[in-house]
């Protein structure tokens, strides 16, 4: 009986130590583990012009523009701060106003020059009719409509 208790205690202590070590390592590498910064966090960090990083947030309503030559400009917001983004390339299917996005690139003269834009969707799942019904009641808190539904608004 005594030996079993000793083994139990040993394993418990070992796990405790391991947990603390993991916590320390993870906090130390926080910067690298964070996949993207929100616009507010980006303002706090004020990165240099050659620092590669990612920003994430929602595409601000009415901010999407296509000045030509395959370039897209839009604004990413976390409702507190906004960052203008400039991107040339293929946009994911889900990209539209009100949708979550993550852009990777560099800050240049207050504009984020993006090399890659990924769509980030939320954790809500429901059929289109249910989404429509909720929108009609004005209680909609989720992200944008199905792709193509917002085309009627843009130029």
């Amino acid at each position: 009986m005594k030996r079993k208790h000793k083994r139990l205690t040993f394993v418990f202590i070992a796990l405790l130590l391991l947990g603390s070590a993991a916590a320390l390592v993870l906090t130390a590498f926080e910067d690298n583990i964070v996949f993207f910064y929100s616009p507010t966090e980006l303002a706090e960090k004020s990165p240099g012009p050659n620092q590669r990083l990612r920003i994430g947030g929602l595409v601000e309503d009415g901010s999407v523009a296509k000045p030509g030559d395959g370039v897209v400009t839009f604004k990413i917001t976390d409702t507190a701060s906004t960052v203008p983004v400039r991107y040339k390339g293929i946009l994911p299917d889900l990209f539209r106003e009100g949708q979550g996005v993550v852009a990777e690139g560099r800050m240049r003269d207050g504009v984020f020059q993006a090399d890659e834009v990924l769509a980030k969707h939320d954790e809500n799942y429901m059929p289109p009719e249910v989404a429509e019904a909720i929108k009609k009641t004005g209680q909609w808190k989720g992200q944008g409509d199905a792709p193509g539904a917002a085309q009627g608004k843009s130029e």
Partner: protein
Amino acid sequence: MIHRFANPTRFLRLADRIQPWAAGLTVVLGGAGLYFALFSSPADYQQGETVRIMYIHVPSAWMALFCYTALAAACATALIWKHPLADLAARATAPIGACFTLLALATGSLWGKPMWGTWWVWDARLTSVLILFFLYLGYMALNGAFDDPERGQKASAILALVGFINVPIIKFSVDWWNTLHQPASVIKMGGPAIHPSMLTPLLLMAFAFKAYFVWVLLMRMRGEINAMKIRAVRLRQVHAAEATSADAGAATGEAR
């Protein structure tokens, strides 16, 4: 209670009774789950038809975590209580968990490309699940790396327990850090964020995967118990041969 089933024969008798039920449940729940997943559920307002991948991706991920928890529990039981079947249960569980983890990664990748726009990112959720896959492989490799099976069991058990810290990291990665992978939809504060018409196929497939796990686990336990018996018989044969040759040597020695 587990000590009651320390006897392999008694365990096998129980396994014989349970296995047909596990098999039946797998087929029934899996069939119903596939019907709802592919036919009788709507597309998602945001993700369209790709939401159907959720019905195999999420249950795979849940099983990947569940199997690792079972593996760690079995290893702890073997190390602390020296339960004779615990090591065998761990060995039987590991390949099943590894398969589910691989499926979680593969189906996730096939879901991510159309929805996110990429096959893979190194965010906290995806990276920690990949680490889980390596832990499974490491366990299986370490287990078989020693001539003495007991040393292999002990070494791999320690790896499994040390790696268990990864399980809460996986679960909470989407809350602790900014990730591309979205937060939890089912087990979260405020209840599930999934419409009932989609929750049905998800839960059916989840339970089908669980039943499949029990089915295959019992099969593999039988194999592991057989392997244990085979090792014991072979060991006896070796000892018997050594005893005979020792006697023969002694006899020859006297004759000289």
